[in-house]
């Protein structure tokens, strides 16, 4: 049953994802991609949880690499998106 | 009934009272139409065209002695001599400007109907010759000005420099004035206009032109059938002061301000003319009633300090074809009020008939004309 509930959640979230991005102007394609890429860094949560319970050295190494990679994705992703979007500030009149 | 279309004898008059398309409708309804030979030629309607519409061609006597005589203007002396007692004569008879001619006409026993006296009600719009002919006049006035002006109306950016658009000022935004505004705008001029009636501003702007606002009391014309009244002396001074600058800046002034039965208001003084640039043009459509410009002379072209002042009195005649077409439609609508299968039916209960019949049964019956004849003024 757990799996079914997970699938339910997955499907609903996918619906939300589909609906949310309706019509993006081409100039926003790159920032939007970059921003959603940063969100996909949510694996960091998994990485942290796995890291918390790692018990072998291999496990620890994997966990460390996972946390590092995910963190690069998250921090770098949000920052670079912000920099891109800075350029969109409406020119002052 | 026999309807006569006499040929106009007045100089410079090219119009004809009924055009072949209107004649066709009358003959289809069983009326007989007699056209004086050559009556429509100057307007582009040859005798053959009338014959094609079922009319017969005749001489002046035949046309004038019809049951209903549809004339452009007041019957000539010869024409009047042929008139049949009890007949109806209709045309632009100028009842208020020239009332003195009516007693003689009355004595011939005809019922005379003046288009100028048709009340300007909604129902009478299709008989409103003043409007239709003013439409032509407003259009023609602008063409006259554009043709004679030494520069372009529109703005043009060319390899030989940028030509500034002309400035056209229209005084009086009645039917002719509005048409002048529209035509000048079409040609690309910068147009502004002035009128004393309160509702004129919106109408001017509805044609995309600027309204020249003069600080003064605006007239409400709803009580006077849409016509303006003469203004007080004080207001007059304000108007002249307010128009000084717009007139001085204009390349073309087209003035159309009139007050029925009164001399036209003075809107352009000699001094204002002198303030205009060399080559500017004034077309004064109010020339028949004295002109809006101090220097206007009817049917003359005056040049004063390099400014040309035209005082045409019969512009509609310059587009005689369409002017006649419209005149004819108006006349047909009016005739329908009294032309029946059986005969003439002059029904004084109809407000249009009541308002427009000047003489009937041997007497002048129109109250305002009677008053003028009695020396009572307006």
């Amino acid at each position, binding site marked *: 049953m757990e799996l079914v509930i997970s699938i339910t959640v997955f499907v609903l979230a996918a619906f939300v994802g589909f609906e949310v991005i309706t019509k993006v102007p081409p100039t926003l*394609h790159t920032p939007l991609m970059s921003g959603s890429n940063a969100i996909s860094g949510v694996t960091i949560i998994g990485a942290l949880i796995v890291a918390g319970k790692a018990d072998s050295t291999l496990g620890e190494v994997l966990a460390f690499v996972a946390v590092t990679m995910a963190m690069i994705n998250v921090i770098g992703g949000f920052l670079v998106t912000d920099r891109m979007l800075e350029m*969109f500030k409406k020119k002052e009149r | 009934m026999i309807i006569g279309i006499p040929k106009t004898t007045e100089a410079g008059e090219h119009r004809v009272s009924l055009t072949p398309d209107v004649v066709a409708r009358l003959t289809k309804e069983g009326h007989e139409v007699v056209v004086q030979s050559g009556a429509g030629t100057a307007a582009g309607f040859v005798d053959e065209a009338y014959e094609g519409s079922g009319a017969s061609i005749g001489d002046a006597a035949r046309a004038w002695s019809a049951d209903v005589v549809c004339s452009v203007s007041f019957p000539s002396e010869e024409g009047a001599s042929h008139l049949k007692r009890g007949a109806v004569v209709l045309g632009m008879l100028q009842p208020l400007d020239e009332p003195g001619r009516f007693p003689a006409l009355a004595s011939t026993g005809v019922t005379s109907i003046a288009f100028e006296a048709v009340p300007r009600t909604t129902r009478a719009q299709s008989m409103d010759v003043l409007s239709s002919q003013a439409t032509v006049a407003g259009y023609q006035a602008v063409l006259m000005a554009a043709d004679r002006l030494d520069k372009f109306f529109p703005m043009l950016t060319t390899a030989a420099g940028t030509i500034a658009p002309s400035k056209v000022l229209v005084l009086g935004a009645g039917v002719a004035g509005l048409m002048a505004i529209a035509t000048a705008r079409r040609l690309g001029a910068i147009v502004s206009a002035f009128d004393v009636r309160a509702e004129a501003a919106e109408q001017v702007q509805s044609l995309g032109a600027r309204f020249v606002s003069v600080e003064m009391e605006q007239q409400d014309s709803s009580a006077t059938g849409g016509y303006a009244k003469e203004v007080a002396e004080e207001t007059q001074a304000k108007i002249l002061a307010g128009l000084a600058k717009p007139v001085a800046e204009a390349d073309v002034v087209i003035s159309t301000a009139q007050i029925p039965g009164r001399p036209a208001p003075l809107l352009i003084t000699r001094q204002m003319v002198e303030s205009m640039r060399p080559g500017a043009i004034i077309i004064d459509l109010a020339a028949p009633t004295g002109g809006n410009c101090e220097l206007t002379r009817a049917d003359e072209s005056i040049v004063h300090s390099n400014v040309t002042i035209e005082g045409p009195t019969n512009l509609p005649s310059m587009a005689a074809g369409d002017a006649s077409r419209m005149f004819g439609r108006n006349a047909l609508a009016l005739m329908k009020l009294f032309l029946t299968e059986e005969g003439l039916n002059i029904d004084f209960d109809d407000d249009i008939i009541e308002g427009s019949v000047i003489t009937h049964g041997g007497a002048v019956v129109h109250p305002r004309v009677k008053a003028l004849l009695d020396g009572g003024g307006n």
Partner: protein
Amino acid sequence: MSQELSALIYLVAAALFIFGLKRLSSPATARSGNQLAAAGMAIAIIVTLTNSGISAWTIIAGIIVGSGVGAYLARTVEMTGMPELVAAFNGFGGGASVMVASAEYLQNPDPAVQTIVTIALSVVIGAITFSGSFMAWGKLNGKLPGQPFGYPAQKLIDPLIVATIVFLGVMLVLDVGGSFVLWTLLVLGLVLGVTRVIPIGGADMPVVISLLNAFSGVAASMAGFVINENALIISGALVGASGLILTNIMVKAMNRSIANVLFAAFGGADSTGQGGTTSDKPVKAASAEDVAITMGYARSVIVVPGYGLAVAQAQHVLRELADLLEAKGVDVRYAIHPVAGRMPGHMNVLLAEADVSYDKLFALEDINGDFPRTDVALIVGANDVVNPAARDDETSPIFGMPILDVDFATTSVVIKRSLSPGFAGIDNPLFYNENNLMLFGDAKAAMQELVKAVAEL
């Protein structure tokens, strides 16, 4: 913190992601959207840390190293290097999913069938994302050849790999073969990422990255299935779905299909854009949406009409466009060249027909000085009258004719049907300028699209 509470807080984080994504899709709100999403992420991380404790050195070290590297890269990258950086970040995300699933597998080497399936999915998809993203990164920064190309065996290799992956997947479900199968899957995923991306041309990389981004979302979601964490499932599904849609939008904007992008190297489909080019120099072909944004966010626009405007009879639409821009607070003026069109005053006649006020029309000598202070010069069906050769190139047959200096504007946009020359029959260097955009099409049709696009800003 109780499990319920943290689950609720994860839900809040997921909601913030949703709001963030929503706002990211409009220029006016995009930046705040990104910040919202970042806030959601911060909340999620803090909750996780509170629950699992910052016990392990791996956590502390990983966070410090990861944040440092990520921040450093993001801060120092050149504007032009951003797309490749995004590709790299995406690769790291995919890698992390692989690691999480692998680590989970190591800790529990004999899970239920459904768990092993999700682990395998996470590993394969994550691996494709990882290697594919770094291929894209290499293509974009020039470390790998940028042109699309195919190699003979390619038609065979990819299907083979995919078939093997499916076969191994079935083995896992049937519970035959142990960890070996999983690690093989990992390697195959990595290989597939390389072989699939490497033949695609550099110009199509943005689409590839977007698609891989959707993959990394799905990978994260699968990782969520593995460790049974709704926060991951939701966010991953969100990114997966929106990434897919975004890819689709991008591909449509290029008038292509996803298949065409992914497999173009086979068919040798041309991916350099529309327009019958008369020259080999590159021009920037823009879409109506691009131009709409450029103009909608400008302070001042100068319109330069030419003969093409008249041919297209597009004066009314032009006026509509200008009205729209003015309603958005943009200052719009018209620069009339003395010989624009085919008769003296041709443009005046045209614009008068559309009732453009005379105050907005400026002759060459009155407006030429303003171009350097103008954001956008919109050239509609004009050509010779904006040809910089007349000003700069003494050998040009039209040298000496005064021209409108549209190339001095921040951006110039030219609307015409092709790169073919105008009346004088000579090529126009303006089209190849760095700051020039070409909007190809009939002037009327193109401006109708512009009107739509500006209205939707």
